[in-house]
């Protein structure tokens, strides 16, 4: 198996942009996995609960209008796009290009701007 070096005490470091973005990448990946499983099980449950198509339609329409559903939808889409953009950064850094401070700064600005734009467009 892999035997990567791991820092013994992660709490003694100051929070840096690169390390924080890497940690959030893993957390968002786990979150997206759980989200996918939850979505599949809940959609299957909705299909089994309703015995006619009209009830299912009404339930889905009520869900789409509600504030909680809208909030969860926008939150998840923004997390998904964060995972995509940060994954691109990881691929670029794995290939060995742009490992410097200026690219990191521009990348952080771009990520924040893009996620802000996504939230604004979906509202």
């Amino acid at each position, binding site marked *: *198996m*892999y035997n*990567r070096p*791991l820092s013994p005490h992660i709490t003694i470091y100051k929070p840096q942009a690169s390390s924080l973005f890497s940690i959030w990448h*893993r957390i968002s*990946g*786990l979150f997206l*996995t759980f989200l*996918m*499983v939850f979505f*599949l*099980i809940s*959609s*299957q449950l909705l*299909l089994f609960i309703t015995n006619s198509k009209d009830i299912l339609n009404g339930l889905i329409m009520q869900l789409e209008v509600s504030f909680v559903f809208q909030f969860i939808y926008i939150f998840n889409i923004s997390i998904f796009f964060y995972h*995509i953009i940060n*994954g691109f950064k990881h*691929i670029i850094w*794995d290939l060995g290009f742009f490992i410097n401070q200026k690219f990191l700064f521009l990348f952080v600005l771009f990520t924040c701007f893009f996620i802000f734009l996504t939230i604004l467009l979906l509202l």
Partner: protein
Amino acid sequence: MFNTNWFLLRLVTFFILGGVLLDLEMLIFLIGFLFLHVSLGLKTILNDYIHIKKIKIILLILIRISSIEISRYILELLL
């Protein structure tokens, strides 16, 4: 560092991204790639953070079983 798992984990993402951005029906066609990405990522996280060997092997087997089960679940839902 450079092995098949490393390469697949990054290669598959381009197909998933194309599926999401161009057409969601393509994502349904490529859903196996998504599960490959999920299971490889979960295995990497497990290998990094869990160092007791017995627990690690048990959890790796559980991840494999659950990823197969979830893909079966999607097929059941769509068919």
